[in-house]
């Protein structure tokens, strides 16, 4: 029997029970659509994370102060305040390959302008910070080394904070805001950077010289974090190694004492973040895959019903000379046609869903041909797998019995 004829026969059989075919295929449609949409969303999130990391600099190493735990309560990383300005200076002085270093002090602060006020993240850093973080300026510019030396009351404002206080970013320039009652002059507005890997709005910030932050606002003498960048093209691992050695020496860490700091490269953080989204993608994808299998069971069920219903037809076909394989192929092709059509519709629905989700919730969605081809082939395979048993059942019918079937 020619394939064209077999396909015609299959299509006709499916058309005869339009509603039933649609409902049966629905399992596959939903499964495939779910796979496409889920993987699209997962990959989108991954791509976004990767992009953010790249924008933050892939040559960045972060040193965090260790945590303290007292009476069962842990302060969290950076809480111990074991890093000092001297550490930062020593790193800059002694580690080869270090391009720029900035001490970082952070704290929440209420910033007010006129009768407007806004709670934001206060970041005390050196001017190198903007280079390390690859942060550009929308208006104005960074503060200088001199500002650091004099603990100048100057500030660079993030886009979100500027909008909250001034309504538009450019208006912030030259204004004087109060940070915990200390007046600071805005000398620069940062370019928009968006949400971070961890989901916080990076533009919701006020950046001031670390000296000003430590003396005038936060009143601390230690650093929760030191950030540095490594010269272009230099591998991070040896630098990380030397950093660890230097700090061990300076902090007198021996074999009997745990380090009171830890070193992480941006790369490691990136790997962690992408690993998380990879796991999410796989999880979502496999849940969707389960629904494909459920859809396949639906197909098997309906094919079994169909074989029983059409016992007489099978008997007629056998009597006039169809071989067992002709019948097997007929029902198998019918199952594959059903599941493949479901797959095609599912791909369309999945792409549509992904598009709607990305525009409605501004989720980043990344659709690649890979999952589409995979989902379609998988749906066809589901048809073969779950269609085989009913088809074989049909093919092995006894023509005499089948012809007698009412």
């Amino acid at each position, binding site marked *: 029997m020619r394939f064209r004829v077999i396909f015609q026969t299959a299509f006709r059989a499916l058309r005869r029970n339009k509603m039933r075919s649609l409902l049966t295929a629905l399992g596959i449609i939903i499964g495939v659509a779910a796979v496409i949409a889920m993987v699209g969303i997962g990959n989108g999130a991954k791509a976004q994370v990767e992009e953010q990391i790249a924008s933050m600099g892939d040559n960045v190493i972060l040193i965090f102060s260790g945590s303290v735990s007292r009476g069962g309560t842990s302060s969290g990383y950076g809480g111990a305040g074991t890093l000092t300005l001297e550490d930062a200076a020593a790193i800059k002085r002694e580690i080869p390959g270090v391009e720029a270093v900035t001490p970082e002090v952070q704290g929440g602060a209420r910033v007010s302008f006129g009768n407007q006020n806004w709670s934001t993240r206060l970041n005390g850093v050196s001017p190198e910070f903007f280079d390390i973080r690859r942060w550009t300026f929308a208006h104005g510019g960074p503060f200088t080394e001199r500002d650091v030396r004099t603990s100048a009351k100057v500030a660079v404002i993030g886009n979100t904070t500027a909008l909250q206080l001034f309504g538009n970013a450019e208006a912030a320039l030259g204004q004087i805001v109060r940070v915990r009652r200390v007046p600071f002059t805005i000398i620069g507005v940062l370019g928009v950077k968006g949400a971070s890997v961890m989901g916080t709005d990076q533009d919701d910030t006020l950046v001031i010289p670390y000296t000003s932050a430590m003396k005038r606002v936060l009143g601390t003498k230690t650093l929760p974090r030191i950030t540095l960048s490594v010269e272009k093209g230099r591998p991070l691992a040896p630098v990380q190694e030397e950093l660890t050695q230097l700090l061990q020496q300076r902090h007198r860490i021996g074999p009997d004492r745990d380090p009171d700091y830890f070193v992480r490269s941006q790369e490691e953080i990136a790997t962690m973040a992408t690993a998380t989204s990879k796991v999410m993608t796989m999880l979502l994808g496999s849940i969707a895959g389960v629904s494909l299998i459920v859809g396949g069971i639906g197909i098997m069920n309906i094919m079994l019903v169909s074989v029983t219903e059409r016992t007489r037809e099978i008997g*007629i076909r056998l009597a*006039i*000379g169809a071989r067992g394989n002709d019948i097997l192929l007929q029902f198998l092709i019918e199952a594959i046609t059903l599941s493949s059509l479901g797959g095609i519709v599912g791909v369309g629905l999945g792409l549509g869903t992904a598009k709607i989700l990305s525009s409605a919730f501004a989720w980043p969605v990344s659709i690649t041909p890979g999952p589409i081809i995979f989902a379609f082939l998988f749906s066809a395979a589901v048809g073969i797998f779950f269609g085989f048993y009913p088809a074989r059942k049909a093919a092995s019918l006894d023509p005499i019995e089948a012809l007698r079937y009412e």
Partner: protein
Amino acid sequence: MTDAIIRLDAIEKSYHTADQPVLAVRGVTLTIERGEFVAIMGSSGSGKSTLMNILGCLDRPTAGCCWLDGVDVSHLTRDEFSDLRNRKIGFVFQSFNLLARTSALENVELPMLYRRTTLSAREQHEKAMRMLDMVGLSARADHTPSRLSGGQQQRVAIARALINDPVLLLADEPTGNLDTRTSVEILGIFQRLNEQGITVVMVTHETDVAAFAKRIIVMRDGRVRSDLPVEQRTNAEEELRNLPVEPLPEMSA
């Protein structure tokens, strides 16, 4: 055995039921020559249906040998049986057994789809049209069985049975579901086909129907009870003239 289409030699067939084996056919030996028109008669349980299934290569005898058109078919595989049915035997059933929701033409084409050597779609189409024309239904080629009368459906079934040029036409109670006039029309077609040289074997339990054949084999308890030529054969055309209402539809070829 000059030109035997069918030769049965001591055919036996037993079925295994729950309690004991049932011997449906107990040693049948007979020969049917090319060009014969044979009616197999018998009450239900006489073994005529079982014999019919064996003749039609739908079933295998438990013992004995069976030759169809010179080929020993006693030990063929399932697929070989299929091919044999496809090329050498045309079936006509009591309940027509056409595919529902499928046009008359496509029903007639169906056996050609299962041929090992397929014709082109156009050749198939033309041949099916010729066959429908022969049974006087070319005007209804696109009708589905539900839109055809019983007699018309049976004529489509006959066209289907003949499409692959079989050596044997097997009819199982072909008039069982038809009224008298239509029955005579169908039997008339068989007589004409037989005159053209096609061997016809027909199973029936009605003596009136059997009288259209040339030879009557009566089965009883799994054995051949009598095997006699028909002396006063009924001619379908004469019979129709005696019946009231319209004449036999025109048949070309």
